[in-house]
């Protein structure tokens, strides 16, 4: 009887299985033949008879082969499964036995995986998740291309209707105009709503279904149709407490009654900031004004049509519209194009977010390098264990698999901790993130992000585990046994660790350089002279609805009263107002103009200028410098001599080498048939009305009293804290007109801060990642040098016994660390030089290869590396030669 087997046979191949079956059957047939021969059968006939008695030999072979093969497969899987269990238990024990190592590795990985997952969740939520509309990739926006190549999205009603009628590549085209509407008359405080004035087919084109009720029906954008409105879920909750009876109720918007017909689901709306949608009814007058551009168009590609086809068609239609109506169109555009809606909505956000994702990717890589380093150090300590297992018959593959299992366990533990960290980072970023990043509020740590975390955990586990595992498993049995405890691969191990440090230094330098550039540009941005003084100024807006304020006289009366009463508020030292002229408001009202005495420009070549109206004292209140001439005075009234003020940019552009003062300007804006404009009486230094990064554009100012406008921004100066005035403002406005909402009530300094909040957001994030990278890299250098010092204790002892001074030893060890750091830094600077090219568009007045930034980064890094190398070096220099030589140092 054979012994019960005590170890596993290697699994059999298909041909081995077949051969064994053959042997088993041959044995049987031989025995039967022998039996027959013993009974007296002749040898040959006995064999034939044995075959005959056996039955169907071929079928038996085939059946047995199939059965054995499936058995082999099952055994293989069971063995794998069993080994995995073994490896997992063993890995758990090994990690549990060295809690310090495990903790450091898990935390490092959690940092890397956590921040990468958090940024991925933002990138996914903002960029990758499809827009919440039906087939969003088929939605497009048509654009006009001006003679200078710039694109503009604004349509006039006639151009819109002509384009819509001519297009065959788009199945439908709709219009959307951003506006604001005053909501009042329901007993609560009046409120300024973000409104979208849209074509009745708007929701149909986008494929938006309402949460409740309905959207607009065809024809509801025609003159005379009953007024209807759709509201956002946000407004429904905030203003109406989620009242289910809101549908069918009447709202007063800008003094007109509208019936609410539907409510849109949060997150499934466009524009994302809108509170209310109403059908846009083009008045007969609007339908005649081809030159007045003020709304956007959104179309859907017809089935089978491509973006490329739509572009080609837009080019043809655009050229035709431009030449057919040169008076209105030629100066605005030469041709047209279409772009994907998605690209237009998200395009600006893509680059900074992808740069951030790249940056956290670096942090993760550095974390992996650090853990790989730790594993290499550990591998040296585990040489004995590996040798014993090899001697007991474990194959190299088996040992690599065991070590990789350990890495994967580490990586998954790090990933689990990382997800917790990611959840926290995600929440922080979503709450503190700046406005203007679309859909940021909807970026969650969802299943996509969790899947991503799992993926990068496994990937990191293999990444940081593979090299150490391969190296460890290469242990040379004979060498280790001959040399006693010291491994034969100490040298190569040191080299591998050195290489890892160089890599991680290089990565850290690249990150630091990128962060440095953003920090430099942010500080440049903060140092930009905005042209006005933002401190101690409170601003707010009101918009006077035409129904109640139909003429200039009523506008003037309201504005005068408002300024008188706010100026009288305690703590207010000056009050002023403007239309289109609030700093950093991005309000843009541009009109064509002519200078008296110059020949009229040919059609399509008229010059245009950004305009604003301001009250007397406005420039002084905001600290805007008057360069020459005078600012507006109280006597520049309605009926007196019309006057204007221009800024220096306008003087430079339109009056080169001329004296603008005294020249007369006529604007393409007529009141009672008389064009606005007047004599230039002053030149001001100008101020930033667009973002701080942008150049100041030519601008022309008129006295408010001579050109009243219904959209009013009020500015109040106070010696104290401007936000303390805020509560006093609303009662003043309410006393004048209880239906008038006050909005955008905030200190001007806050407007300034929020205008740079995106730059600040990206800078802080990238800076944070760079600091993490630097710390990890420093820990890496420290670890490698400290380990090298421990390994070389005997050698250092000998050197000191032979007369090397402590300083010499210190210098040697620090030198070793610095050499690694410098090589890494050089590689990193080179890498940064190439990689930061891609960031140019994010930088402001800093070159992507800014020498000061690069020098600063290199300096920081060398200093950190010096400290990280100095600490272990000091220990080396304290080596007692006696102890070291006896191997006890």
């Amino acid at each position: 009887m054979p012994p019960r087997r005590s170890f596993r046979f290697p699994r059999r191949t298909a041909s081995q299985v077949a051969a064994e079956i053959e042997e088993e059957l041959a044995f049987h047939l031989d025995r039967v033949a022998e039996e027959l021969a013993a009974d007296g059968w002749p040898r040959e006939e006995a064999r034939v008879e044995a075959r005959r008695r056996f039955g169907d030999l071929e079928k038996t072979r085939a059946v047995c082969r199939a059965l054995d093969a499936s058995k082999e497969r099952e055994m293989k899987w069971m063995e794998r499964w069993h080994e995995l269990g073994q490896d997992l238990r063993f890995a758990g024990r090994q990690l549990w036995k060295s809690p310090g190592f495990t903790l450091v590795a898990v935390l490092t990985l959690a940092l890397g995986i956590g921040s990468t997952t958090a940024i991925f969740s933002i990138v996914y939520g903002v960029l990758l998740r499809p827009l919440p509309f039906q087939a969003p990739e088929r939605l497009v926006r048509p654009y006009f291309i001006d003679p200078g190549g710039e694109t503009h999205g604004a349509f006039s009603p006639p151009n819109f209707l002509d384009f819509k009628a001519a297009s065959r590549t788009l199945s439908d085209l709709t219009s959307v105009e951003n506006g604001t509407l005053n909501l009042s008359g329901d007993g609560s405080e009046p409120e300024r709503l973000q409104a979208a004035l849209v074509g009745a087919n708007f929701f149909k084109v986008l494929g938006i279904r309402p949460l409740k009720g309905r959207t607009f029906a065809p024809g509801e954008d025609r003159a005379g149709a009953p007024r209807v409105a759709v509201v956002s879920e946000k407004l429904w909750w905030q203003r109406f407490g989620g009242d289910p009876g809101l549908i069918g109720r009447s709202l007063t918007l800008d003094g007109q009654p509208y019936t609410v017909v539907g409510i849109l689901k949060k997150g499934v709306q466009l524009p994302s900031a809108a509170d209310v949608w109403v059908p846009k009814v083009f008045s007969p007058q609007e339908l005649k004004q081809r030159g007045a551009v003020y709304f956007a168009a959104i179309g859907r590609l017809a089935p089978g049509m491509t973006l490329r086809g739509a572009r080609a068609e837009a080019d043809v239609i655009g050229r035709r519209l431009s030449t057919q109506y040169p008076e209105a169109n030629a100066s605005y555009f030469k041709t047209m194009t279409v772009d994907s809606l998605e690209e237009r909505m998200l395009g600006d956000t893509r680059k900074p977010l992808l740069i951030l994702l790249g940056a956290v990717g670096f942090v993760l890589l550095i974390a992996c390098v650090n853990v790989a380093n730790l594993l290499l150090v550990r591998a040296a300590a585990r040489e004995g264990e590996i040798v014993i297992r090899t001697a007991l018959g474990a194959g190299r593959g088996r040992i690599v698999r065991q070590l990789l299992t350990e890495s994967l366990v580490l990586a998954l533990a790090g990933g689990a901790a990382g997800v917790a960290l990611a959840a926290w980072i995600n929440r922080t970023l979503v709450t503190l993130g700046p406005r203007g990043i679309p859909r940021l509020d909807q970026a969650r740590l969802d299943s996509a992000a969790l899947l991503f975390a799992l993926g990068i955990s496994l990937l990191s586990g293999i990444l940081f585990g593979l090299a150490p595992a391969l190296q460890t498993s290469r242990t040379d049995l004979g060498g280790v046994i001959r040399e006693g405890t010291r491994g034969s691969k100490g040298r190569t191990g040191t080299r591998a660790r050195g290489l890892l440090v160089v890599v991680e230094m290089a990565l850290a330098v690249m990150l630091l350089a990128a962060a440095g550039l953003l920090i430099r540009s942010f500080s440049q941005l903060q140092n930009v002279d905005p042209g006005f003084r933002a401190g101690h100024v409170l601003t707010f807006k009101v918009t006077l609805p035409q129904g109640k304020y139909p003429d200039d006289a009523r506008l003037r009366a309201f504005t005068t009263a408002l300024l008188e009463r706010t100026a009288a508020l305690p703590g207010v030292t000056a009050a002023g107002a403007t239309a289109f002229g609030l700093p950093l408001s991005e309000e843009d009202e541009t009109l064509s103009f002519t200078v008296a005495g110059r020949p009229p420009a040919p059609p399509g070549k008229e010059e245009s200028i950004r305009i604003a109206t301001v009250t007397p004292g406005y420039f002084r209140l905001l600290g805007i410098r008057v360069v020459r001439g005078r600012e507006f005075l109280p006597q520049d009234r309605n009926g007196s001599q019309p006057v204007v003020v221009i800024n220096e940019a306008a003087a430079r552009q339109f009056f080169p080498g001329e004296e603008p003062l005294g020249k007369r300007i006529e604007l393409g804006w007529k009141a009672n048939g008389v064009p606005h404009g007047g004599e230039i009486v002053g030149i001001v230094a100008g101020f930033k009305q667009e973002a701080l990064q942008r150049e100041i554009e030519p601008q022309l100012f008129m006295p408010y009293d001579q050109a009243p406008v219904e959209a009013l921004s009020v500015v109040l100066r106070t010696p104290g804290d401007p936000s303390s005035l805020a509560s006093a403002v609303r009662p003043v406005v309410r006393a004048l007109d209880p239906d008038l909402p006050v909005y955008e009530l905030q200190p001007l300094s806050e407007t300034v801060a929020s205008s740079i909040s995106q730059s600040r957001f990206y800078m802080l994030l990238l800076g944070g990642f760079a600091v993490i990278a630097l710390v990890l890299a420093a820990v890496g250098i420290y670890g490698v040098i400290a380990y090298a010092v421990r390994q070389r204790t005997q050698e250092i002892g000998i050197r000191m016994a032979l007369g090397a001074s402590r300083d010499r030893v210190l210098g040697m060890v620090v030198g070793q660390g610095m050499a690694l750091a410098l090589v890494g830094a050089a590689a990193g600077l080179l890498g940064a030089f190439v990689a930061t090219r891609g960031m140019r568009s994010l930088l402001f007045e800093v070159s992507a290869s800014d020498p000061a930034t690069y020098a600063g980064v290199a300096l920081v890094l060398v200093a950190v590396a010096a400290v990280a190398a100095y600490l272990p070096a000091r220990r080396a220099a304290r080596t007692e030669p006696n102890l070291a030589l006896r191997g006890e140092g």
Partner: protein
Amino acid sequence: MPKSSLDLLQGTVAVLILKTLSWGPLHGYDISRSIRQRSDGALGLEDAALYQALHRLERKGWIEAEWGVSENNRRARFYRLTDEGRGALQTELSTWRSYVAAVSKVLETA
């Protein structure tokens, strides 16, 4: 060899093999001989069916096979009952007994 053997019912082969192996490991030839002898040649188990059944039982995990040396010093494949097979034998036996009892009852009352 008598030719008047009973044809074996499907499934009966398995229980015969299991029972035969319950006394100890055997190779296929000995199993075949043992069954023939103990039934006094009444049960003619075809060798082709025996070997297919052996490999089927091995696939099920009721028996396991191993190469050993036969009494005439040749390499032979020995089969042994596994713990699982031992349990299966008990179940099969009791099923068999109740089957036989039921069939006898019907036949004897007839």
